[in-house]
């Protein structure tokens, strides 16, 4: 694929991860799911180019790659925002009011579950059971899992994290301006 030759070093490294995964399975067609998993891990999402690359390399029709990728919930086809919050909507979390947390965040950022804010800063996602049901409701903010949440605690934490990184960016921006 063109993306590969024109890709920068960073992207090349990630392609190497995909290649390694395919090699591990001897380029067998039944490794498709594993390879897609690695691809998503490396890039964070599956772009059309990446699906094409996997299809070429494994010699599986693009339609089949696409069919498999869209069947499973774990694959996403859009990049995530800079920050993200995953709210568990499994049974235990549901009966403890996780939908209220989803609603609060969705309202505060004006996006639906599964969407990213237009400025690419924040994504709101849901998951089915994170396996900490004893501490329901459970949310994951930028990879950190916490239990016993309320709409208020989650919203506050998300706002803090976004504000913090905005400050850092701002500070860097000012510094580079001063330096210039």
């Amino acid at each position, binding site marked *: 694929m063109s993306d590969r030759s024109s890709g920068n070093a960073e992207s090349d490294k990630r392609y190497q991860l995909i290649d390694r995964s395919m090699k591990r399975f001897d380029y067998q067609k039944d490794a498709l*799911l594993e390879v897609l998993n690695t691809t998503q891990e490396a890039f964070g999402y599956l772009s059309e180019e990446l699906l094409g690359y996997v299809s070429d390399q494994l010699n599986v029709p693009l339609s089949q790659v696409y069919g*498999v990728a869209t*069947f499973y*919930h774990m694959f996403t086809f859009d990049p995530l925002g800079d920050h993200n919050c995953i709210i568990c909507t*499994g049974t*235990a979390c549901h009966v403890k009011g996780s939908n209220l947390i989803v609603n609060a965040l969705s309202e505060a950022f004006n996006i639906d579950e599964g969407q990213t804010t237009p400025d690419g800063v924040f994504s709101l996602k849901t998951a089915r*059971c994170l396996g900490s049901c*004893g501490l329901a409701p459970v949310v994951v903010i930028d990879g950190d*899992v916490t*239990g016993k949440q309320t709409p208020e605690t989650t919203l506050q934490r998300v706002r803090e994290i976004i504000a913090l990184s905005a400050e850092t960016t701002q500070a860097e921006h000012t510094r580079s301006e001063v330096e210039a």
Partner: protein
Amino acid sequence: MDFSKLQELAQKERERQEQYKHRIFCCTSTACLSAGAGATHSMLEQSVAACECHEHEVEVVATGCMGLCSRGPLVRVETKDEPDVVYQRVSPEVALKIVAEHLPIPPDDKDDTADEEGDILPHDFPHFRASLRKAQEQKGLEQYVLSLDHPFFTKQVKVVLSEIGHVDPQSLEDYLAHGGYQALAHVLANMTPEDVCQTILKSGLRGRGGAGFPTGMKWNFGRLAVGDTKYMIVNGDEGDPGAYMDRTVMEDDPHRVLEGMIIAAYAIGASYGYLYVRGEYPIAIQRLQRAIRLARRRGILGSSVLGTNFSFDADVRIGAGAFVCGEETALINSVEGKRGMPRMRPPYPTTSGLWNAPTVINNVETVASVPPIINHGPEWYAAIGTEKSKGTKVFALAGQLRNTGLIEVPMGITLREIVYDIGEGVSEGHTFKAAQTGGPSGGCISADYLDTPVDYENLKKLGSIMGSGGLVIIDDTTSMPEFARFFMDFCVDESCGKCVPCRVGTVQIRALLDKLIAGQGELDDLDKLEKLCKFVSAASLCGLGQSAPNPVLSTLTYFRHEYEALIQNKTNQEAAAD
């Protein structure tokens, strides 16, 4: 490597452990981690290091789930010749108190530049020691001590979870020191595959994946099936949203899963196996992969298992989040790298499964029950439980209860004991409404049936199923039609779309529920709902569709008044408007 070599390793590890005066176990499984166990564990390690104890005074072990997740992080201190103490809600501050309680804190004039290695620099020691002294003065550790006489612990019988919370899941030596791989060694040395099947049949073990099929019988089908290559698959997909039994077993005792799997493989004559694990469980995947690597290195997997001429190897396959992939034929498609859609049965996987070869699929908990059955004998296992449901069942107890967590109870225990003794009832000011078992394929059981002994037959009679072990308790704050809708929403999303009754039926059921919840329902809608549910049950291709109506049907049976109230409201409003 033959087993005597492994036994030497086990002996060495046991001797190493016995030298310690204190062993501090910190739960680092998922639930405790989300309650902050990471910080607790590192505080334990750092403050213990700062005590600069003699060699063999103390060891900190990261271990698995101790069960009472709602009170996490949990820490257990084992002191030689003294009873164990378990602490609850151990924040880093409490961790300091624990260390100060059990270890001598050295004076600060000691030479701090001593040859100390590790993450923490010796010049930090005075700082930690100051904190330890302060913690010691503050006292108040008693309130964190968990009484082991509590019914939460005394009502449980641990067969599958016996080593979890004691064993270090990352260490093969520790598993061996706890008697690991003894069952496998015994099977390979003294039993024929037929003996193994007979033993499991005699134990009465039934599949823990939900349906409760007798495991010994399934293995016999696998054993007698004709094929050059056979496969053994362990189902770790755990699709029930609200349950984490299999996850805990895979994460916290991965070698146990592997040992059970290898015994099963020997019984059926499989040469290769897959552990199919949900992608949402990265730690389980990592730990199983590590366990496989270590087992291969020690000759527990490979061309000559424990030095015998039995050959078996295994690999992990990662699922990508589709509920239906827990269904065995869909799982097989997924392992083959395809869309996870179910196949028609028959032929059953034991005749024609993975790549059309005979394949046995068992749930994680099923295979994890096997080593203790071999070690203690089938009679021992069959003595636990009820007439038709033997042994123990692990439940993920969650929802509106005081104590939530992971429990293992003998079959035949009543729901009342689980809810009121183990769980200590629903929270203050609320009343128990229902117990939901079996997740989206199961049903809701009302307070009238709390005294029913829990086993496969009874739960089925009540319109629910045992399922894989999700047990969600709900109180009067949850509306049952809304709860039924929650599950139907799940099934609509998860229906793979292959067969029409499930694909279209679930959407129609949800629409009817929406109409009722919105207060637009008519009197005959309940009949319609019931008919539709029965149709979807009867006509769907796989278990997903066949059981999808269960949450609706069971709530219609036990909580019909809530549905009727929705309609009544509407009628009243109309009357008022007239």
